[in-house]
């Protein structure tokens, strides 16, 4: 059987595992041959592989940011743990795992533990929805994009819960800022996505990616939407210049002030999981996902794992831009942030919807010689 997708890998591993058990304990061989059981185990294996891959990528993303930030600042960043500090984040994670777990005396027990956990789990759910490459990760639900955005917008709830239950004023202020900010930026993000939907005619991320082979028709109407979306994503990810909830200068560590040890590691990890997922989402929606424009030579897209390669390359480039922004821009203030969100981005996103609709109406700009292939 040819192994071409991640599902095939998972199915193969499940079959092999169950077969091995059946070989060792012959009476179990028949019940273990059940197709449903094999598929169930395959789903577990699939999830485990996905989880491992996304975790490793997240940790590499942190390494990437630290090194790149170091270079922007005339220094080197982590150097001494592993080659070029590659193992630094693993050391950090293991250390946090080993640290004493504690709860401040007056903190609310349930919220204090459940908040970070739910935050991390919901963030990781994103990877179940985002398609990575053709056949590699099953995101081909008819409304996968909506689902992705819904999962993405869980975060403020859990941040606020953990901030409130840690019984610290800084945490509380940080949590409130976080909630206000994320709610304000949900709207322009969704409107920008509407522009994408209008052009692609689908809520399915796979369809959206495949539509983008039509390069010019995609780029021209959606540039504005992309700017809005990226700005909104910066706020959703709470990165500089919109990292007010964690604004170190005034709020100590923001909503995770009272967290240490493993729970803090959850926050740290979830932040970067969201950064990774957000970057992938930007790539999928606007930068062609795992595809390249149709005029690019086919040799570039035909080698094994080409889709994942191109997707991750683009993702890291997008994230690199975020790091660059972090190294170059100061933080804005809460009122300025909300003003940017409500008064600048929302009109812009509405305009992007109008532009996209106009392009779809004329179907095509003849001078560019593109062929309309729209579904809607």
């Amino acid at each position: 059987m040819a192994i071409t997708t991640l599902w095939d890998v998972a199915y193969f591993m499940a079959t092999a595992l169950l077969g091995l058990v059946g070989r060792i304990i012959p009476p179990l061989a028949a019940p273990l041959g059940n197709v449903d059981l094999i598929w169930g185990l395959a789903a577990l294996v699939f999830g485990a592989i996905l989880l491992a891959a996304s975790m490793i990528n997240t940790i590499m993303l942190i390494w990437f940011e630290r090194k790149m930030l170091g270079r922007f600042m005339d220094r080197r960043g982590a150097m001494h743990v592993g080659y070029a500090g590659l193992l630094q984040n693993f050391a950090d994670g293991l250390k946090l795992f080993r640290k004493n777990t504690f709860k401040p005396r007056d903190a609310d027990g349930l919220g204090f533990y459940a908040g970070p956990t739910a935050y991390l789990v919901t963030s990781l759910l994103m990877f179940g929805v985002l398609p990575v490459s053709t056949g590699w990760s099953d995101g081909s639900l008819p409304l996968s994009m909506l689902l992705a955005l819904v999962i993405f917008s869980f975060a403020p709830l859990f941040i606020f819960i953990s901030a409130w239950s840690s019984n610290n004023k800084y945490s509380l202020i940080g949590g409130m800022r976080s909630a206000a900010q994320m709610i304000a930026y949900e709207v322009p993000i969704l409107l920008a996505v509407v522009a994408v939907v209008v052009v692609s005619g689908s809520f399915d991320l796979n369809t959206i990616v495949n539509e983008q082979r039509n390069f010019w028709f995609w780029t021209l109407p959606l540039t504005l939407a992309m700017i809005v979306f990226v700005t909104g994503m910066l706020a959703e990810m709470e990165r500089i210049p919109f990292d007010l909830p964690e604004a170190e200068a005034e709020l100590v560590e923001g909503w995770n002030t009272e967290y240490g040890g493993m729970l803090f590691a959850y926050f740290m990890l979830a932040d970067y999981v969201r950064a990774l997922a957000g970057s992938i989402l930007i790539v999928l929606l606007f930068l062609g996902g795992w595809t390249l424009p149709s005029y690019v030579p086919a040799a570039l897209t035909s080698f094994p794992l080409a889709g994942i390669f191109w997707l991750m390359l683009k993702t890291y480039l997008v994230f690199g831009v975020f790091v660059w922004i972090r190294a170059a821009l100061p933080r804005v203030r809460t009122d300025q942030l909300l003003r940017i969100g409500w008064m600048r981005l929302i009109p812009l996103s509405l305009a992007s919807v109008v532009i996209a609709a106009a392009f779809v109406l004329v179907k095509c700009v003849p001078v560019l010689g593109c062929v309309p292939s729209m579904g809607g």
Partner: protein
Amino acid sequence: MSAVAPAAPLPAAPKPGPVVGPGGELPVVTNDVTFVEIETLRSREFLPAAKEALSAMLKEQGESKLIRPVFNWAGRNSLFPLHWGLACCAIEFAAAFGARWDAERFGVVPRSSPRQCDLLIVNGTVTWKVAHKLIALYEQMPEPKWVIAMGNCATGGGPFRTAYSVVPGVDKLVPVDVYIAGCPPRPEALLDGILRLEALIRERGE
């Protein structure tokens, strides 16, 4: 309105010892509520049985030659100091994170919240007024944790040793693992101190 007389005009020579606080007692400020008690998970919260089982397992593994070096390696290579500047040495502390010395190469990243720190670098003179805050910060740090006394003031009072308001050495307040001499120590000395602490952790097998 007549002049208000000052409370204590010209007291007799104060009795020896740095007297701070009412009645000239030892300088732990007892009527201050800024002490923070930290109740750890071990006490009664959150699945005590599971926690016990896990810690038993970890303890068992801790004796083994397999897991323990890994955690030791992780612990010593990722020391997060508390972002706290006390006095002069804080400037050199900051310089150690500058471009020339770049302490982040060794995985040393300052965090602002004591909850997320492993390392308290006492970089300057500790006065009796700040002593209990320092202890509170130390107690807010989760175990395992270490203390570096940076500079002469933190080590033994330095040039202000005789002053009425200065703690003659931070080891009176918290246990110190590494002392760094200098007034202030150069950033190299701080990095050396951190590396010595790493060696100490490796030896002690914390």
